[in-house]
């Protein structure tokens, strides 16, 4: 089982694909998402979102605030500005 991930900003779709795990920082602290995670909606703070793709490679993105929603093994990360 894998996660379908979409990282989108207002102007473009930054990253989309299949991943095994994601870690991000929400207002409550660091958060890791693996497959089968319960539906969650979190507010992100400025920080790093790292996505581990199925091939094992990890991509880090600096985000400035945003949201993370998890449901049925699909994750969408919405953020205003992204830089990798």
């Amino acid at each position, binding site marked *: 089982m894998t996660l379908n991930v979409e990282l*989108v900003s207002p102007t473009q779709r930054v990253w989309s694909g299949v991943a095994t795990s994601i870690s991000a920082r929400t207002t409550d602290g660091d958060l890791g998402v693996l497959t089968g995670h319960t539906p*969650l909606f979190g507010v992100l703070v400025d920080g790093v979102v790292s996505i581990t793709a199925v091939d094992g490679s990890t991509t880090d993105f600096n985000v400035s605030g945003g949201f993370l929603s998890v449901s049925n093994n699909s994750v969408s990360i919405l953020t205003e500005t992204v830089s990798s």
Partner: protein
Amino acid sequence: MGAQLRIYRRRMRSVKATKKITKAMELISASRIVKAQQRVTASTPYANELTRAVSAVATYSSTNHPLTTPSPNPIRAAILIISADRGMAGAYSNNAIKEGEQLATLLRGRGLQTTSYLVGRKAVNYYRFRNRAIAGSWTGFSDNPTYENAKEVADALMVAFLADAQTEIGGVDEIHIVFTEFESMMVQNAQAKRMLPLEVVESDAPVPTGLLPMYEFEPSGEKVLNALLPRYIEARVFNAMLQSAASEHAARRRAMKSATDNADELIKSLTRLANAARQAEITQEISEIVGGADALASASAGSE
């Protein structure tokens, strides 16, 4: 060269020069539509996800957020009109402004006062000429809006909305947006929509179907909504601006195309007139020469 012919030639030259300009503007707009359309498409995933998130939060958290609950006795409404900075786009700006007027009439019919927020020089000039109050105006980016522009506008609207309309002059209870929806290359519609209080059910783009999951909110439903709604408004304003920009280019292309076609027609009929004038001149010259020769011939015949 005859005077008449010279006048026709002069007019043809000026029409040809105008045609070159309109043709160039047509081509420029045509290339920009594509780019503008791509930007609309690129912004759609974000807008869709956000709409989905807002509907999920509003549906499943039992919070009574000020942004989602209509005021019991609203007294003032804000109207955001998105128009163009430059003309030469046919009725594009006018349609948006007119749609805004209709909305204002409708709101006044409900007993509300209206305040106007304007984007684009055309709308600003329209309001200034009529000496109407403008609560806020932004110009200079109508054909290529950035997210920062949208943010600026959305921030001003949020400030007005969060202020208490009963006690403060600048406060509003409702926010409406008037923009031009880009349906296709040939069809663009000026539209008025209510942004706040939210009507979460309606959305521009088809929201991914399927039941919304029971989300767990972190930190809490209300806090999530607090953070989510300003972003949602920004995204809505941004999307409206992008669509309006695409519509503006499409409207300009269409207007310039018909201007070029008209110039072609004009040149054709002027060419006909000039040809007729030239021919008339030649005919007259010939008859003058023949007449002159005749007179000479009969005069010399009489003397012999």
